[in-house]
């Protein structure tokens, strides 16, 4: 049995691990997949049915798959960015033609996440400046909240910024031939909506108040 602190640490680690998959792949990550250890850290929280050793034939193949799925030199692709899957803005004063449509960068979610990062004095790389709502950053921030936030904040953040993953998976399925990234996203979806971050979060909160 994990202690609560240990569970928190591991949960935070698990979120950080998942965040790794939405960054450009490293050879280390590929090797860990190949030898079946990449997802070990998730096992306390998610029932793993696969270990994905054969997801990619080579590191190059994994890189190409990442580029293909998320970066868009080919079509279709599905960037892991929240704004793209939500109405661009709810502000009724917006008079640009796409204001009520989905599929555009730097929507309301990006503004909000950017605001939260600023409030918590968190910095992120320049290349993500217009996409602070990238899934890798959302997962990192959730991990950060586990350590520094409150239960309400965790709940609120999940509820506000992890409600687009089903739509993302739908689009990703069109792009992800290996279905690896689809699987990882389903794991993310499962984890952020699991008792580890939900039902048992009150206990985490209690611990925090100690």
């Amino acid at each position, binding site marked *: 049995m994990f202690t609560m602190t240990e569970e928190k640490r591991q949960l935070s680690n698990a979120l950080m691990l998942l965040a790794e998959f939405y*960054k450009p792949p490293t050879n280390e990550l590929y090797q860990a997949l190949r030898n079946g250890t990449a997802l070990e850290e998730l096992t306390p929280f998610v029932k793993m049915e696969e270990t994905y050793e054969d997801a990619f034939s080579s590191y190059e193949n994994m890189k190409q798959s990442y580029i293909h799925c998320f970066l868009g030199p080919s*079509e279709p692709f599905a960037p892991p960015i929240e704004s793209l899957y939500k109405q661009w803005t709810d502000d009724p004063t*917006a008079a640009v033609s796409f204001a009520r449509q989905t599929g555009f960068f*730097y929507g309301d979610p990006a503004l909000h996440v950017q605001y*939260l990062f600023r409030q918590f*004095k968190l910095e992120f790389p320049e290349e993500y400046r217009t996409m602070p709502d990238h899934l890798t950053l959302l997962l*990192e921030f959730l991990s950060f909240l586990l350590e520094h936030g*409150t239960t309400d904040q965790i709940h609120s953040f999940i509820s506000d910024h992890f409600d687009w993953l089903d739509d993302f998976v739908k689009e990703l399925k069109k792009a992800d031939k290996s279905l690896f990234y689809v699987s990882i996203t389903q794991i993310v979806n499962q984890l952020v909506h699991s008792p580890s971050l939900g039902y048992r979060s009150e206990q985490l909160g209690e611990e925090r108040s100690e």
Partner: protein
Amino acid sequence: MTNLSRRTFLKASATVVAAGSVPAYFGFSEFKKAATEESVKKVPTFCHGCTSYCGIVAHVKNDRVWKVEGHPIHLKSSGRICARGHGMAAYLYSKDRVTGPMKRVGEGKFEPISWNQAFKEIGEKLDSIVKQYTGNSVLWLEHGTHRKSYVDRLFDTIGSPNFTTQYSTCFNAKTNAWLQMTGTSLNGDHKNAKYMIFEGRNFAGGIIPNGMNHITKAKEKGAKLIVIDPRFSEIAKIADEWIPIRPGTDLAFRLAMANVLISENLYNKTFVQQFVDGFSEFKRMNKEYTPEWAEPITGIKADKIREIARDFAKYAPQAFIEPGWHGLHSHYVNSTQTAQMGIILNALVGNFYEKGGLMPSASLQLGHLDLPAIENMPEKGARIDGAGVTGEYRTVEPSRGIAHITPQLVQQGLAKAVFICNYNPLRTAPDPEEQKKIKDADLVVSINIDWNETSYYAADYILPEHYYLERLEHPQAVSGHISHDNPQLALRQPVIKPMYDTKDTLDMLKGIADAMGHKDLYPFTIEQEVEAAIAPLGITFEQLKKAGTLEFPATVKPGFPMKKGKPALPTLTGKIQFSADLFKIDGKLGIPVWVPPLVEPDSKNDHEFRLIHGKQPWHSHAMTTNIEQLMKLSDKYQGTFMWLNASRAKKLGIKTGDTVTVKSKIAKKKVQVKVTELLHPEAAWLPSTYGGFSPKNRIANGVGVNFNDFIPIMVDPLSGSTMAQEVVVTVAKEGN
């Protein structure tokens, strides 16, 4: 358990705000509510939806573009913008933009690379090409000339004369004729006109918002508008008369108009005597072109030609034939002569430099940076496209070049490195399958914002430029299309910070030049360039940034340019030259005479049509077709349909909505048809917009067909244009 290392992107700055410090708007709903209360900032700049470059004011809220509207004083917009202007703003946040430098790794396969890698690889490759084949093997293709001063420094350094615009696909015949015959370029003074002939010209399709405003104002004051076009174009809707001329015969119509003006002594003798050179020869050679001669050629009754010529003379000098743009001026083998006749007709009625006639655009003398001279400049050879070269295309303007023959230059081994900037020849030049061969050059670099066909099929590298709402440019003296007395200066400036990992073209050239070993070739910034440009004007950068467009006291007055009592146009004689010296080739007099179109549909074959094309008001050729909002308009208005005349369609059993097969010598495509009375029976009309075939452009890909699909690469012998309507197609209902 193995612990994989983590690349933490989200890093705490000096102090992490810990639990208990709750941001005011942690919840998304509260935040959104608060965000609506933020103030709106207005940033003036100008549009990039077409080459009108209308002044706009972008509203910015929460660092996002919130609204765009027309700049109140800009000559082209005057407070209004068109659908394209709104649509273009949407693309700012589109996921279809190229988000960083890309390198081709296979057919249709690219990988993101860093700018440093891009510069290093392109610079090394270019250097090796220059060393092996000389700088003359390097070609720069650009939509216009915006970046020419930057390219010139690199091309002067490597010895390339091959800066080429896309104008051979657009309007070369017009600018060539005006240059040779007048040395200048004038615009219609629509606002003050009493009689306007728009022949192959459509301000309401290729929208110029303030141009339309001027025309409607003139009409309110009683001006007459005559539209001569095989198609009932958008501007025909407000015309007093629409004359559906037989396509390809505008030259005959104009020759006959001149004949009426001269034979009925309606021309302005004083003006002609004082300001025209070559009238007598013209008069002699024009004698045979009577309205009766023109009637069977043009399909316009001789009496109607007389009526128009007489009215034209009656209202002159507050009357003009629109000098035109794309329509007529890259369409036929006789386009240059047609453009010449436009000048001649206007001159015959003496409307040059007259209010309500043709007037100049007020211009500004801008300053420039005093840059260090380039040392050891290699000698440049002749242009590889032959523009301006004796024995090749001697009469074609070398400053514009012949863009659409680039694949041939590549195949001939003349073009080894091709840079293509803000231009998409694979979609907007004739014969896309041929244009694809540009990819065979040793180095192809596409500097475009999106995954257009050229980038996707031909580029080795794609270098994405900042979007027009993200970049600062050298200020632009506003001119073109509409005459105006007061010079204007407009600034394109960033409305928001760049969304993606993009750059200015200047920075790209700096990077490439550096990698080639030409350090400090560009020892300046765009800001410094702007400062130098405005220095003579007595304004500050801050003033210009704040205003976006500044208007200066009037500099234009009516009256023919004179010097020491003599006409002073920049021509050999100082006069309007009815005989263009440069066109006196092959024993010709340089005076326009009848030249029939190269091809004719067979009148006995019900399936044959001349394929013609035109702009739609909500699209700008192919550059806006991946914008969802604008393509919705295409859906709404059956925008992708090919128009056919009702009587001809009936013979073929074709109804609106039917799919037909259109076939030329080089292509066979399917398209839906709109059957209408509003088109000349010999013509099949296609919008110039559709037929996208880049798989990366998910909105545009596979929608409709394009006129360029059907036309082979041809070169107008005088002006180098595409002759894009010298094509006969057969049309058959699907299944027949």
